[in-house]
């Protein structure tokens, strides 16, 4: 059965621009002409940047979009080249991708899977995008990844932290650079043990949806492995804004650590509430009461304000890293926009470059070629140290940062400080690890 195909668009776009209209109507079925979905035939290639522009993650989406614009500028030879200078692969030359100038279209995911798919589909069907990237939640990432697999384009995930994205919902056409729940747990546990000792009682508040479940499981199993006891784990509704009734009973339970498996607005509110209750000033079981937030982002830290001070969590990347790659990225981003990039911006920028590089090395935009080039690809100089794109599940394996809310921030961006860079070996797991079980990668789909 022939599938839909839009490769004519690239040709038509250029020919129309050149004013070479075809006089007679030509009628044909499209699938005959193209080797793969949306094969760029003109002098340009179109990428689709699908980020939340409305809804609670709009600011994160805006930062992702800034990163993509910067990446496009660098790929086309503009600016200072950014991470292309420090990237271990030297295939990119600053002349676009495979000599074609990079163009892009943008869309609004609204952080809803339906809207995200509609937006991604319009990029594929209408604009002829050959790769879709971006997003700020795992629900959206899984939905769009499945769509890209069906349509036959590459999906480079943006910010998505759930194990499922490269676990039970993994797809051959999808790739994730961001870290995941398992890695957060594995990186955090040793630091927590060092700081708070191995005789602790933890109380979990968990966002009642997939990402919350995987994060709770990851943190629970890592902390229990080093001797912590889990007193209780309570699920909180996604739409909850006031967490007082969940936080009030924590002290009664005899727990001395509160783990907030929340993200975004949930995390900002639950942490603010917890600090309001004065939990951090209390003594339980003869120890200081502590709060832990497994996944941190700078935007959330900003929303929670002074409440983050001294609270541990993990992130994918932070602008205060001092390796060459991070410095180069902070410099080019900072000079263009006037403030340091967030971890969402970093992962999106890196994903765009990794895709471009894979196309160059494969010598084609064909998704199957790109998949082959990315699978098992080892690289360095992108800010996270030596990194591997594992072939089995298309997950990047790299160092993970454990961070802490800074006590004396010097600016509104200087909210987190790096406590430890957890080496990659410590966060690596087997592809069939129980937390990732189920799901099949399948085979790459080139569309046509």
């Amino acid at each position, binding site marked *: 059965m022939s599938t839909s195909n839009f490769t004519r668009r690239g040709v038509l776009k250029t020919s129309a621009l050149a004013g070479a209209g075809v006089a007679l109507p030509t009628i044909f079925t499209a699938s005959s002409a193209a080797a793969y979905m949306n094969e760029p035939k003109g002098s340009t290639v179109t990428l689709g940047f699908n980020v939340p522009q409305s809804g609670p993650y709009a600011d994160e989406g805006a930062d992702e979009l800034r990163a993509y614009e910067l990446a496009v500028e660098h790929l086309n030879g503009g600016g200072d080249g950014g991470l292309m200078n420090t990237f271990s692969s030297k295939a990119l030359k600053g002349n676009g991708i495979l000599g074609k100038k990079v163009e892009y279209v943008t869309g609004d995911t609204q952080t809803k899977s339906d809207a995200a798919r509609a937006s991604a589909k319009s990029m594929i069907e209408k604009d002829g995008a050959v790769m879709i990237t971006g997003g700020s939640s795992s629900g959206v990432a899984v939905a769009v990844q499945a769509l890209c697999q069906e349509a036959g384009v590459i999906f480079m995930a943006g910010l998505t932290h759930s194990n499922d994205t490269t676990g039970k919902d993994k797809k051959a056409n999808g790739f994730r650079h961001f870290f995941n729940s398992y890695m957060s747990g594995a990186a955090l546990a040793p630091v927590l043990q060092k700081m708070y000792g191995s005789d602790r009682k933890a109380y979990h508040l968990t966002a009642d949806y997939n990402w919350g479940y995987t994060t709770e499981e990851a943190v629970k199993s890592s902390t229990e492995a080093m001797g912590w006891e889990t007193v209780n784990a309570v699920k909180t509704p996604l739409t909850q804004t006031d967490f007082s009734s969940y936080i009030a*009973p924590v002290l009664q339970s005899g727990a001395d650590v509160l783990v907030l498996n929340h993200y975004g607005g949930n995390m900002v509110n639950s942490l603010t509430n917890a600090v309001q209750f004065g939990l951090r000033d209390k003594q339980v079981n003869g120890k200081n009461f502590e709060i832990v937030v497994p996944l941190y982002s700078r935007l959330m830290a900003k929303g929670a304000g002074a409440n983050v001070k001294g609270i541990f969590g993990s992130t994918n990347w932070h602008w205060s890293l001092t390796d060459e790659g991070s410095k180069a990225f902070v410099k080019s981003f900072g000079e263009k926009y006037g403030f340091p990039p967030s971890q969402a911006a970093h992962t999106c920028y890196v994903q765009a470059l990794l895709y471009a590089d894979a196309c160059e090395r494969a010598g084609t935009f064909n998704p199957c070629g790109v998949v082959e080039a990315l699978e098992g690809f080892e690289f360095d100089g992108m800010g996270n140290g030596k990194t591997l794109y594992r072939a089995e599940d298309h997950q990047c394996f790299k160092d993970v940062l454990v961070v802490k809310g800074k006590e004396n921030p010097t600016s509104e961006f200087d909210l987190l400080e790096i406590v430890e860079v957890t080496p990659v070996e410590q966060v690596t797991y087997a592809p069939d690890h129980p937390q990732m079980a189920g799901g099949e990668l399948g085979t790459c789909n080139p569309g046509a």
Partner: protein
Amino acid sequence: MDAIVLQILNGLDKGSAYALIALGLTLIFGTLGVVNFAHGALFMIGAFCAVTFSRILTWSHTVIDETKKDFLGNPLKVEVPHIYDLFGQATGDAIIDWAVPLSILFSIPVMLFVGYAMERGLIKHFYKRPHADQILVTFGLAIVLQEIIKYYYGANPIPTPAPAVFAGSFDFGALLGFDPNTIIYPYWRLVYFAFAALIIGAVFAFLQFTTFGMVVRAGMADRETVGLLGINIDKRFTIMFGIAAAVAGLAGVMYAPINSPNYHMGMDFLVLSFVVVVVGGMGSLPGAVLAGFLLGILESFASMAIVLDTLPGLNQIIIYLVAIIILLTRPRGLMGRKGVMED
């Protein structure tokens, strides 16, 4: 036992927020007969009054500090609030610290004006229109208002802390003879509860004990007759709309330290406040307050770990479940009047 006392306390606090918003909403239903979907937006604007006021207080000029570096290695630009120059750093910090309570004074005129402008400019033309049209136009207005806020303040929550003296929590447990630390409650939330009680009391007293309030109540019961008596009821209703907006706004101002304000916080509260109003009974002010506290307390109980162990997910649906049960057993909610919004 202590767990139950704690959740009752919690429910009262939650309920006071619900009651306050529902009260404003009911004032508008009851007096003007208008379904105001922009009421959540008024709550949100109130919270942003607090944000704006603290921004005004911290309005700064830049001083370049050569000794420190920013993230690009350039000399660090330090923001110094103008208020430091006026009062010195210590007094300046104290004023900034009290930004939220002080912004009550700022928000009352702003909210009264917003309410007045809304009623005169838009709502007035919709008294005779079907409820569906009222919903559409006020929903449109709510979207416009929140998009404007988003345009200027971004989508991220903005931390707006309470004054430092209210940090930490009060130990009820020790007071009531339980073990220490078992029943603790944040000072600011106690302030919020007292504040809500004060506002609710003031609104009731205003309606009950003043001539103005008496006329408004008469107008709620029978608008035409009051109009025939030669009283300009429209003008009073406009003022009531302004008061309702101010109530919603004050609820928002004081809520800002509890949850960092963001542009869609109004929409988050909108559905809930409608449920509260309807459960209380359309057009009944005491009903709205009662339902607010009732739902607040039930929600708190449903979030207890013991309850969730036996009935997982109950916390997700408790409010709606209670609403359905009440509406099926009491046709017009707890204290609704006959014939209000029933067609």
